[in-house]
């Protein structure tokens, strides 16, 4: 049952990431693209955690934590750049 659930959820999350890529490609404005990239890193965290469950390893937990921190920092940095025209004033 767990194997089947893992396969189904990997498929659903891949469809979700493809939808995010679609929004990155056509997004009419810059905040749309930032929002799509933000959602994409959140979905990729879920995908990496699923991969860790699949292999039964704890190694992938650190990768997920790193992606979470760097994704948040980069989103905030690009938003500050859009708001102020500069990142560190």
């Amino acid at each position: 049952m767990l194997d089947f659930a893992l396969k189904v959820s990997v498929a659903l999350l891949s469809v979700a990431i493809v939808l995010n890529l679609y929004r990155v490609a056509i997004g009419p404005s810059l905040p749309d693209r930032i929002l799509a990239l933000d959602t994409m890193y959140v979905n990729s965290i879920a995908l990496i955690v699923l991969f860790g469950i699949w292999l039964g390893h704890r190694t992938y937990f650190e990768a997920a934590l790193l992606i979470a921190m760097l994704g948040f920092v980069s989103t905030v940095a690009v938003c500050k750049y859009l708001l102020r025209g500069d990142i560190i004033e």
Partner: protein
Amino acid sequence: MIALYTLMEGVIAFFLIAGSIFALIGSLGLARMKDFYMRLHGPSKISTLGVGCVLLASIAYFSLLESGPSLQELLITIFLFITAPVSAHLLSKSALHQKLERDPRTRGNPEELQEDDDERTLEETPQGSSKLP
């Protein structure tokens, strides 16, 4: 003992499927909705919930595998639940700063988007009829 394993397998499978369906719904909202202020809803709420469900499943799986509580995934969950509102707030502020177009059905009239209306009313006001003392 075998009954416990079967029950926990069902619980983990349920959380996995629920989390990925939530993430898919959030991304579908991001891809399908009309303007930016609508699109902000899906990822900032539903996708965070989906990842939270997947991480709960991971906590349950590794706690069962190593026969002890493993709460490291809780770190990612707490971090995501703290940072998702912050990034959504910054994104909406930058969208308001850029004065993005919005659908006429989007409600609300924030200050940042009202400047054009104020200028028009100032121009339309005839000279000398100001109500100010």
